């Protein structure tokens, strides 16, 4: 009996020991992401765990705190994360501070699934001074959406022409035109559903990325098309002096236009973050909206998002402007100007220098973003907030139709995004250290201008002064060098 007991004890101890050892020996990948990007781990994490034997620990935080969480980890050197899904706009902070790995070595070692299949604009976004610092995941840019049953209704078109003296374009060509259309469709039941509808909506709430709404409009009045240099292709700073451009007539005109547009939106527009913006539009409350590609995904899924407008939405790149400010000649050029702007730059995956398992992290991210899986992500079947970014996403129309998209909708949606991502002159978002601070002040004073507490001129002047101070604090030379690097310009002699 005693022998048996000893034997049993040994066996139990061995079993426990083996299990414990295997549990300890199993590599754990700690991956940080916000919602809905973290859904990528839900969608493909377990499949990867089975293939690789690596355990994935998903750490999810809300969007407003992810930057804080990441930077705190970097500064304290904790090394809590192996891979992080971040906004491409923060690359300036991460690369400038030397916190993240260049991925060129890993790409060479393990290869990358179809790099040529990545849209040129996205390759630009993940690149910094000739090196790849992030893995693509999302093709972010703002699109313009409109209700076809409103704007394409011939009766309304005639009525509009009578009132405004011209026939509008579909899609609207300029923001001036958008303003008139928004005014026309604001405050009456144009879809006969018994509810009052509104003209236009956009993200306007403080601390919910409203600054990008302003950039969509201001870029059209500020950025001159052409190869990036002192006077072309730049939106934020003079790339030779680091002087802010926000107090130039182009930005001021953009802010004034946004103030005008806000008058033709829902009464609670100033409380619209991206959630409210998307949900209300797909519920059919507005004639026009501009936002990221997510609206298309939500529009196509009545079951999940309560969309009442499936198939009734038109898509295009952002409208342009009828004039643009020429800084070189210091005057308005009265010509059509349309700029594609890569708002936010998209969500990308980075590997911190403190990552304990960079190889495994790289392998998992490339596994989950290969052509097949990324298609499922962007069409909404494995929705995780990603919009089309691979060239194959634009050509595989059947994949979209199989996922429940209408043929016309899928074609229009893809054409709009592709035209932006394939534009070699698309303007890049700000990517220098302190971007969060520059943008927070832009957001704050935009909020004051939209609430009628400040004129556009005063708000732009104030932002310009504050941006100057931020640049001084970070060091003008350093910021200038990094700004030029982020634009792909050579350092100044």
């Amino acid at each position, binding site marked *: 009996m005693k022998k048996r007991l000893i034997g049993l004890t040994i066996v139990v101890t061995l079993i426990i020991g083996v299990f414990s050892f295997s549990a300890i020996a199993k590599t754990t990948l700690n991956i940080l992401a916000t919602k809905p990007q973290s859904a990528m781990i839900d969608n493909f994490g377990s499949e990867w765990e089975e293939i690789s034997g690596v355990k994935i620990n998903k750490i999810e935080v809300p969007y*407003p705190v992810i*930057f*804080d969480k990441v*930077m*705190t980890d970097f*500064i304290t050197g904790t090394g809590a994360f192996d891979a992080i899904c971040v906004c491409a706009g923060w690359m300036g*902070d991460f690369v*400038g*501070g*030397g916190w993240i790995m260049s991925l060129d070595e890993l790409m060479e070692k393990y290869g990358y699934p179809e790099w040529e299949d990545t849209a040129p604009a996205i390759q630009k976004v993940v690149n910094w001074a000739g090196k790849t610092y992030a893995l693509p995941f999302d093709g972010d840019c703002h699109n313009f959406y409109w209700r076809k049953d409103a704007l394409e209704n011939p009766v309304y078109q005639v009525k509009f022409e009578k009132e405004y003296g011209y026939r509008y374009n579909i899609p609207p060509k300029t923001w001036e035109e958008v303003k008139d259309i928004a005014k026309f469709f604001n405050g009456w039941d144009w879809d006969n559903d018994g509810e009052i509808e509104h003209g236009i909506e956009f993200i306007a*709430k*403080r*601390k*919910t990325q409203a600054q990008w709404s302003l950039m969509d409009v201001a870029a059209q009045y500020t950025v001159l098309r052409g190869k990036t240099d002192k006077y072309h292709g730049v939106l934020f700073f003079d790339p030779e002096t680091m002087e802010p451009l926000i107090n130039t007539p182009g930005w001021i005109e953009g802010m004034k236009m946004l103030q005008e547009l806000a008058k033709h939106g*829902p*009464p*609670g*527009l*100033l*409380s619209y*973050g991206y959630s*409210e913006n998307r*949900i*209300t539009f797909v519920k059919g*409350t507005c004639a026009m909206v501009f936002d990221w590609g997510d609206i298309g995904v939500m529009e196509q899924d009545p079951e999940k998002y309560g969309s009442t407008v499936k198939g009734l939405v038109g898509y295009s790149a952002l409208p342009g402007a009828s004039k643009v400010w020429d800084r070189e000649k210091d005057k308005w050029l009265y010509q059509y100007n349309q700029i594609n702007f890569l708002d936010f730059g998209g969500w990308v995956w980075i590997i911190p220098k403190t990552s304990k398992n960079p190889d495994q992290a790289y392998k998992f991210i490339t596994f989950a973003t290969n052509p097949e899986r990324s298609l499922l992500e962007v069409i909404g079947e494995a929705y995780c907030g990603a919009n089309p970014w691979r060239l194959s996403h634009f050509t595989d129309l059947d994949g979209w139709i199989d996922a429940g998209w209408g043929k016309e909708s899928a074609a229009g949606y893809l054409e709009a995004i592709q035209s932006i991502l394939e534009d070699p002159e698309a303007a890049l978002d700000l990517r220098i*250290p*302190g971007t*969060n*601070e520059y943008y*927070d002040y832009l957001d*704050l004073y935009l*909020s*004051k201008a*939209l*609430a009628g*507490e*400040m004129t556009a001129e005063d708000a732009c002047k104030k932002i310009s002064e504050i941006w100057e101070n931020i640049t001084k*604090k*970070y060091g003008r030379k350093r910021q200038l060098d990094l700004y030029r690097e982020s634009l792909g310009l050579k350092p100044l002699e």
Partner: protein
Amino acid sequence: MLERAKSKFLVKWYFILPAIIFFIIMIIFPMIWALRLSFFNWHAILGPKMNFIGLGNFYDILKDERFWEDLAFTLFYVGMVVIIELFLGLGLASLLNRKFRFRNFFRIIYLLPMTAPPIAVAALWRMFLQPDLGVINKLLVAVGLPLVKWTTDPGIARISLVIVDVWQWTPFMLLALLAALQSMPQEIYDAAVVDGASPGQTFLHITLPLLSPIITTLILLRAIDAFKLFEYTYGITGGGPAGKTESLSYYIYLRGLSYFDMGYASALSWVFLLIVLGICLFVLKIMRREMR
């Protein structure tokens, strides 16, 4: 004998030592560290290099419009919530101190808001107060009243945050004041009735003076807590519209953990601490004088 006394003395110290160590590590050390940081320019995003700038950060605070705007809002908010919650709490406590059916049920119901985490309360009220989609405006419209711009009008948005705070924290006042009312000696009230005092006179000349010490404590506790306003700003308005609901705590958070401007954030924290301390001492002094 001496040995025994000495060991008794040491035992006492052993018991309080963990608390002292905890206090030093978690409170004293961070405070001193933050004070030291406030004399440096340190953008942590760029790495560990810090530049000593003396009183530069404090000088910048004096010129910082955003600091003064946020301080003004924070003071307005604290003043409003403390006064409203005190009076409402006092009224409700007097009501619940009487005997009536379902008294215990109401006592529990009133305490419920206080048990919810403030960030969850913020998420809930953000939905309630949304001007186009929120349930409050839907109800107002249903009874024929106009829409209220709860979170989009700069003036009304400030009041909205006060309403949320009052909803959540009046029960705290109620609970403490009810406990105080229930511990009052009945004989004094009996004597007042014999002397022909009206209910109003009884309240003004007996209840209120007896409640003064607890009221002072409650005002201080609520004021200190309200000064830390963060969750409602963060969760309901994001500081908007027009930055009108940005509290000083939220600004410090942005400076420190969003811009990673650690030196300036530390200086702001110290200034904030001194302001709160000064105001609390001032209020305490006045209340004590009144009580005398």
